[in-house]
């Protein structure tokens, strides 16, 4: 029936089975979305941002204002990361999967650019532009990361960018309103949506 000796067929089958499983594994890693983005993390970061906005509003100088928001970020980032890791563990996911790395590759450069620009703007005395830069670049990062994650994140990123753009044309006294709307309200709303529809 076959022109292939039985033992060679066995070896070929075994090799092809191993190859196929490896192919399936790499294809899954390439196509699985990064679903460890935590809705609870978004809500927690949003609440922290609202608290920061309340404190920042009553600050007497730009330095004090900046300190409040940087302190908020210093607390919110680890909180978000810990809740993301907890979600990943709960769902037996790894944060450093191919999708996780793609998400980080989209998100991290924009955040790093935001940090550098903040430093440059503060040095140049243009603190009024800082909220727009934060909103725009955070939005750009989320939007870039969304292509390998939960699709609704694209809307979150886009809305952040709209807020950042609009904030450029409003008085600087409104800065905490814009930051509270983006980092507070938007994150809480989208966090609740993700928590309800994407497993926490």
């Amino acid at each position, binding site marked *: 029936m076959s022109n*292939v000796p039985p033992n060679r*067929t*066995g070896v070929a089958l*075994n090799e*092809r089975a*191993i190859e196929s499983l490896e192919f399936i594994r790499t*294809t899954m890693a390439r*196509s699985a979305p990064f679903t460890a983005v935590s809705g609870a993390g978004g809500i927690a970061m949003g609440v922290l941002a609202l608290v920061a906005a309340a404190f920042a509003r009553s600050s007497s100088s730009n330095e004090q204002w900046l300190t409040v928001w940087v302190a908020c970020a210093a607390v919110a980032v680890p909180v978000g990361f810990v809740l993301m890791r907890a979600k990943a563990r709960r769902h037996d996911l790894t944060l450093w999967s191919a999708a996780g790395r793609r998400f980080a590759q989209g998100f991290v450069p924009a955040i790093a650019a935001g940090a550098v620009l903040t430093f440059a703007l503060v040095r140049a005395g243009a603190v009024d532009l800082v909220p727009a830069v934060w909103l725009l670049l955070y939005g750009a990062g989320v939007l870039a990361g969304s292509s390998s994650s939960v699709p609704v994140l694209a809307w979150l990123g886009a809305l952040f960018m709209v807020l950042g753009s609009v904030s450029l044309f409003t008085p600087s006294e409104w800065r905490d309103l814009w930051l509270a709307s983006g980092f507070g309200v938007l994150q809480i709303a989208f966090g609740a949506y993700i928590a309800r529809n994407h497993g926490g």
Partner: protein
Amino acid sequence: MAAKRSAAAARVDPPEVQRTVRAPAAATATRAAGLDRLVHDRTRLAIVTALSVNASLSFTELKGITQTTDGNLSVHARKLEEAGYVLCTKGFEGRLPKTEFSLTDAGRRAFKKYLDHMEAIIQHARGKK
């Protein structure tokens, strides 16, 4: 020029010869193992695998994952659709046509059966050693 052509031919020939020898052997092995040939093909296996971890994927997303051409993806997706493994939904996103693919229950069962089959082959080979 002629020398260049023959040199090029010499470079091309060995893989072609290899293919003609290996292809029937691979096909025979696939038949011998009783594998679902619809799923076993690499492009179709990539489609089914990608859809097994995503609720649905667009044509463009599948093209990126399978790294194949539009025509090739269409042909393979249609074969899976005809077998009832894949559901194809055509619609519009704004004014742009959008084709979405998802795995049917039959497709999910066929994929699971294929995975079990692969594992059984490996277990069997390990048992022989």
